[in-house]
């Protein structure tokens, strides 16, 4: 027989594996990555360009005098730098991302492919309109879908994010109030609202008056009625609200608001729960922004870009900002300036340069076309089903602030189930990281103590939810069993342990500075 043994063991040795320090600080696949400014060099470039020949510049006296101080990397170095950095991120592609109110659902790759078609990605916003008829058609088609889903009259596509859409909707309301020759300085905002609502109202010079929530977490029409007056311009209501509940008296609230001569702004952050189930136009809403990056799944990209088109009722349609798409006999037309306005069009101004987020429009439209009317409705139903399934799996161990009742697309718990354990909502969330999960939204909405807001989205399978529920149950039982250290020291298995935010804020270090010379450092 032929012997070819080199004596290499083929099953692991049984030596105890206590944690060890490594020379590099790396931990296997978890590699430490220096800052670009520590590895880059000023004379290295990853882009080959021919040095231009001699020519007579026409810069006048405006030539740059000092170097920029921009280190460069060759392509292999750059690829490695950014790939290693990417590996320090949690992402929806790698796991359940239950951030309530943020809607981290699957991002279909077809949408990325569509956004990169040369006829979409490589067209300029100001090239002749005769060369971009397909782009205008795409905007019109997106608008048609949004209006059919919401039952509204007009759409302003251009806002660049949810908060920007809020600004747009509230600017339309302010313009409408002024057009009636009125001054209404107050905006009503429920206490459970996203912070952007009061910030937006204040930015426009409105005074914010909070609306208290009733014991069941929803807004009481009587409470609204009491606050309404000829001084009130609008109410900003989120529906479904940030507690994950549908405002069941929304129609009555809308009626009261309209009777008082005010407008109803709906924060559409949670529209994904009701697409195909209810039309906000029929609920009495006058303006609502739609986060394309939430409901229609354009990727969040580590914090943007988003897109926040605003749908408007007949009361506000005339005030939609420039540019907008007008349907004409020959087809859709992009109206860019006041010189092109028709009778009855009184835009309040312009939100952005150019025409808004085409790259997001096309992704959202691809998402809508893929789902269709039936798929959109199914997605809403599955999102609500999943949230309630999580609720059902946890309701005996976790505490629901508004009682055991069905929720919409997200389920809210408070921290009373942790009373006496010494474990806080923050500790609990950080322990989830060690279990391989991104934490849920914490401490929001503000109306609930130690809030934990879980939005699983429709992208999660039953098996995925079963493991998630089992994990949270296990953690809750460990908290109650007094395993406090597990929580206080968490996370242990992340690229970083808890970070010192106090230090970051007390002595802000917001950009890289070269290290002090050795003599100084030694002092």
């Amino acid at each position, binding site marked *: 027989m032929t012997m070819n043994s080199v004596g290499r063991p083929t099953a692991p040795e049984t030596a105890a594996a206590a944690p060890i320090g490594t020379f590099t600080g790396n931990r296997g696949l978890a590699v430490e990555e220096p800052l670009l400014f520590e590895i880059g060099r000023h004379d290295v470039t990853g882009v080959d360009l021919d040095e231009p020949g001699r020519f007579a510049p026409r810069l006048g006296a405006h030539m740059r005098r000092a170097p920029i101080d921009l280190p460069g990397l060759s392509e292999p170095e750059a690829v490695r730098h950014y790939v290693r950095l990417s590996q320090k991120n949690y992402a929806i592609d790698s796991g359940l991302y239950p951030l309530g109110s943020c809607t981290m659902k699957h991002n279909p790759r077809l949408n990325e492919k569509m956004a990169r078609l040369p006829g979409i990605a490589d067209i300029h916003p100001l090239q002749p309109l005769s060369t971009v008829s397909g782009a205008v058609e795409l905007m019109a088609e997106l608008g048609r879908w949004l209006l059919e889903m919401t039952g509204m009259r007009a759409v302003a596509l251009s806002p660049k994010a949810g908060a920007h859409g809020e600004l747009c909707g509230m600017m339309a309301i302010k313009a409408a109030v002024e057009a009636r020759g009125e001054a209404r300085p107050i905006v009503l905002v429920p206490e459970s609202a996203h912070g952007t609502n009061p910030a937006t109202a204040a930015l426009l010079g409105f005074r914010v008056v909070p609306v208290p929530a009733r014991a069941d977490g929803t807004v009481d029409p009587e409470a609204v009625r009491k606050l309404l007056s000829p001084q009130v311009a609008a109410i900003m209501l989120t529906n479904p609200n940030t507690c994950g509940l549908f405002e069941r008296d929304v129609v009555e609230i809308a009626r009261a608001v309209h009777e008082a001569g005010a407008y109803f702004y709906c924060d559409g952050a949670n529209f994904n729960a009701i697409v195909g189930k209810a039309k906000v136009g029929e609920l009495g809403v006058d303006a609502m922004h739609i986060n394309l990056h939430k409901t229609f799944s354009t990727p969040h990209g580590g914090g943007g870009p988003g897109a926040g088109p605003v749908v408007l009722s007949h009361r506000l349609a005339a005030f939609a900002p420039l540019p907008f798409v007008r349907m004409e006999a020959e087809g859709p037309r992009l109206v860019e300036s006041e010189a092109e306005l028709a009778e009855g069009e009184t835009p309040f101004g312009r939100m952005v340069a150019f025409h808004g987020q085409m790259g997001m429009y096309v992704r959202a439209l691809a998402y809508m076309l893929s789902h269709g009317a039936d798929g959109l409705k199914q997605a809403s139903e599955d999102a609500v089903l999943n949230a309630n399934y999580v609720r059902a799996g946890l309701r005996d161990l976790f505490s629901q602030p508004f009682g055991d009742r069905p929720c919409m697309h997200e389920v809210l718990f408070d921290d009373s189930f942790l009373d006496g354990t010494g474990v806080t909502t923050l500790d609990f969330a950080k322990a989830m990281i060690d279990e391989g999960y991104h934490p849920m939204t914490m401490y929001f909405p503000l109306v609930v103590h130690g809030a934990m807001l879980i939005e699983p989205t429709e992208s999660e399978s039953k098996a995925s939810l079963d493991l998630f529920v089992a994990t949270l149950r296990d953690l809750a039982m460990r908290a109650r069993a007094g395993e406090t250290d597990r929580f206080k020291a968490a996370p242990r298995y992340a690229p970083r342990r808890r970070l010192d*935010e*106090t230090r*970051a*804020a*007390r002595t802000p270090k917001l950009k890289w500075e070269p290290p002090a010379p050795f003599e100084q450092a030694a002092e």
Partner: protein
Amino acid sequence: MSKRYTKDHEWIEIAGDEAVFGISHYAQEQLGDVVFVELPEVGKTLEKGGEAAVVESVKAASEVYAPVSGTVTAVNEALVDNPGKVNEAPEGEGWFAKIALSDPSELDGLMDEAAYKAFVETL
């Protein structure tokens, strides 16, 4: 006279014809690590209950209200570089500002130390 307190957790102490004020030990505990303090300008007129300063922790920003009316005569510049003093010695080195009182009778409406202590226990 000894320290007086407001229900919004400011303290004030008379020293000569000036008064010095800041936030209470309880308040700094609730805020957590203070990272920034925005102080009023010297010479500014404050109204009792009006905004006098802003104190920020990592997660919250809170207004500090004037315990009584008056004109600001000095501010604690040391807090600009070392806001942590508000945590270390809230009712001492972590003072916010000094004011010349415009209506000393306003002090009568404030709590003394024992009353404030009792008040905090109800929270």
